[in-house]
């Protein structure tokens, strides 16, 4: 569904991604792990078109989207939930949700369905999103991406800054959405254990290069790899 081939991205003289190749199938989660500065966020920003690669190719549904404008990529069904959760604080919770569905008006879900998944949001539907807690913002971001019924989801550090007791449910929700909706998810995380708990495949990035691409179980058993790149 989503395929990256030898994707290379430079920031000036710095090579942030170095020939990264990977694939995400429908109904599966690929977790991309690695330390700060490994290139995880750059990877997602390159896939969704916010950053243009120096070389390589991104294809989605067998179509080359490497040079497609950002808004058009989204309209094809590839949603990106950015790091820092990216809710628009000046808009209300409900406006954020509506905005997410605008580009696919006929096919989009109703805000009600999203409230069904995240009841906490419904109570705050008419409040500005800036008043939400970190966990609620994450729910709103994910809900806002799902409301347009995308085929694939790019998730950037959903656990960042969240209390551990919220991380579990969020990851559980992601897995549930993948299983019920057949989504393809590319999940970028520093929190390797929680990401691998819901992933079908684990990719480890280091200095922009893929150093491992294995099933989660194999990654967790490889003590040296864990120790070197994942810090536990």
């Amino acid at each position, binding site marked *: 569904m989503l395929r990256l081939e030898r994707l290379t991205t430079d920031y000036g003289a710095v090579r942030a991604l170095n020939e990264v190749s990977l694939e995400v199938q429908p109904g599966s989660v690929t977790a991309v792990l690695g330390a700060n500065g490994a290139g995880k966020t750059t990877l997602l920003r390159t896939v*969704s078109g*916010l950053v243009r690669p120096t070389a390589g190719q991104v294809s989605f549904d067998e179509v080359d989207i490497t040079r497609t*404008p*950002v*808004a058009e990529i*989204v*309209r094809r069904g590839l*949603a*990106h939930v*950015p790091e820092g959760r*990216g*809710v*628009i*604080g*000046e*808009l209300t919770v409900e*406006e954020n949700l*509506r*905005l*997410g569905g*605008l*580009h*696919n*008006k006929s096919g989009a879900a109703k805000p009600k369905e999203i409230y069904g998944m995240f009841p906490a949001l419904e109570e705050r539907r008419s409040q*500005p999103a*800036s*008043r939400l*807690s*970190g966990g609620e*913002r994450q729910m709103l971001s994910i809900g*806002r991406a799902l409301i*347009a019924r995308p085929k694939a989801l790019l998730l950037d550090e959903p656990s960042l*800054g969240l209390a551990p007791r919220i991380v579990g449910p969020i990851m559980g929700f992601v897995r549930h959405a993948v299983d019920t909706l057949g989504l393809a998810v590319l999940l970028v995380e520093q929190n390797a254990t929680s990401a691998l708990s819901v992933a079908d495949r684990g990719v480890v990035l280091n200095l922009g290069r893929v150093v491992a691409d294995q099933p989660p179980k194999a990654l967790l058993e490889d003590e040296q790899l864990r120790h070197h790149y994942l810090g536990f």
Partner: protein
Amino acid sequence: MTKFIDLTLSGVSSGAIYAAVALALVLIWRATRIVNFAQGAMLMITTYIGSELITSTGSYVIGFLAALAGGLVLGAVVERALMRPVENKPELNAVIVTLGLYTFLVALAGIIWGDTPRPFPAAFSILGYDVGGTHVLFAPNDTFIVLVVVALAIGLGALFRFTDFGLRLRAAAFNSEVAELLGVRVGRMFTAGWGLAALTGAIAGVLVAPSVFLSPNSFDPILISGFVAAVLGGLDSPPGALVGAAVLGLVLSYVGGYEGTELVPMAALVVLVIVLLIRPTGLFPVSKGRRV
């Protein structure tokens, strides 16, 4: 007491015009963080367009609508042709472009229409209402001005709040990257936003022209008042701009009526300085909320 009421009403009328100019500035500032110094020149051009059509067709309505349409097109063209290339560059670049555009448009108007001020018709009588045998300052045309600006404010408010287009416009203005990630074609929204702002400015131009006459530079003072009103309101908030304009309209009207009209420009400056000293973010700062 009669004088006070008289001045209050005339302050409301000029406040309405400041409000339209302030809204034009706020719409662009909010979306692109650019203060459009060319706004005065842009609304001058559209008012000339209106004037030409009123003269040739004899219809005020046609001229009025032509000025509005001219604003919409001019704003969109300016964004596409001049502002797009300086997007995401240092802010000073955009400021210089708007100043250059101001100079260009004023010179262009001088070439086409000359420097001689020409009269511009009012929509309705500018002779004050007759109240108990005396004429007050407030005239039927002032009623028209206030109603048009109120309708404009309500229209813009409804557009932003209740329509999908308005939601996209706001999203692009508040956070263009996130908006883009949600499928909003941000470039088009900026073009539309400039068009909308210039249309708003065009309304101000047509409304104020009967009292200032029409020449390439005759709208410069209005732009300054509009700018002060926008800053009073926090520069970021359309309702703030309306309140700021009303406050400024009243203050300037009282100063002009009680102390003399020569003090009016200085009074505008004093109001600006006082507000900036006491509340540097304006009377209505837009809450940024807490960052988690």
